[in-house]
């Protein structure tokens, strides 16, 4: 009875696909660079979730190790990305990604 209600790997993978698609649509429709960054985090999390749900299926811990490295690289990526956003958007209140076109020399 309990086993029947427990979510299976297929459900975890479907949830992860849905999360990934939401992040993807978010990157495409939002124009605030910060929110786009958050959507990239969403996509990374979706992939992490699928890694973790597939790791026991192959009886191997390597999937969880990969998630660990993804977490570290995501942290570094966020730090650098936010630094770039801060240095570009400083002093501009209503910043959108279109303002980056001003970099064109």
């Amino acid at each position, binding site marked *: 009875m309990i086993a029947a209600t427990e979510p299976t790997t297929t459900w975890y993978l479907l949830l992860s696909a849905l999360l990934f698609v939401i992040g993807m649509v978010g990157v495409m429709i939002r124009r605030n660079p910060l929110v786009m960054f958050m959507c990239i985090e969403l996509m990374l999390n979706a992939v*992490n979730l699928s890694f973790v749900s597939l790791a026991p299926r192959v009886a191997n811990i390597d999937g969880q190790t990969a998630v660990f490295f993804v977490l570290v690289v995501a942290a570094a990526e966020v730090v650098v990305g936010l630094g770039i956003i801060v240095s570009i958007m400083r002093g501009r209140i209503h910043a959108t990604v279109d303002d980056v076109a001003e970099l064109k020399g």
Partner: protein
Amino acid sequence: MVLLGALGVILRSNPVHAALSLVLTLFGVAVLFVAQDAHFLAAVQVIVYAGAIVVLFLFVIMLLGVDKAEDIKTEPLTAQRPLALVLGVGVFAVLAAAIVTSTESVVRRGEGLSVTEASDPDANIRQIARSIFGDYVFAFEVVSILLLVAVVGTVLLTRRQRRDGMVSK
């Protein structure tokens, strides 16, 4: 709950609300990690993502002063949103089809196998430690250098350069 948070990230017009929705999603994913016996990753997820990264986001939002609602109604490119939605639905359909058709065999093959013994709650952490510091110790060191480079690069990027050449904070 996870999906609610994710939708909140892309639909709330206020960036602060979007960041808080992101916290909801990240906690939800951490709970799913625990449900799959990945205790170490759940802890790291809460500490690094929900703790550090979202706080960083909120700091930048406050620093830039963009914590006002963005005008979400205007559509700069015509038909951008419908196209994005159509593309999203299409990608999800392809992914779902691939998952449904392929996981049956994978799940059946993996039946009865488990990474960690359920009786020992520390087994997961022990196995991950053996994997990271044994098989992947070189990648671990490279990642630490990457973090160092990211920190130094960010400091260089964000500090202001004065005209007279002196560097000020």
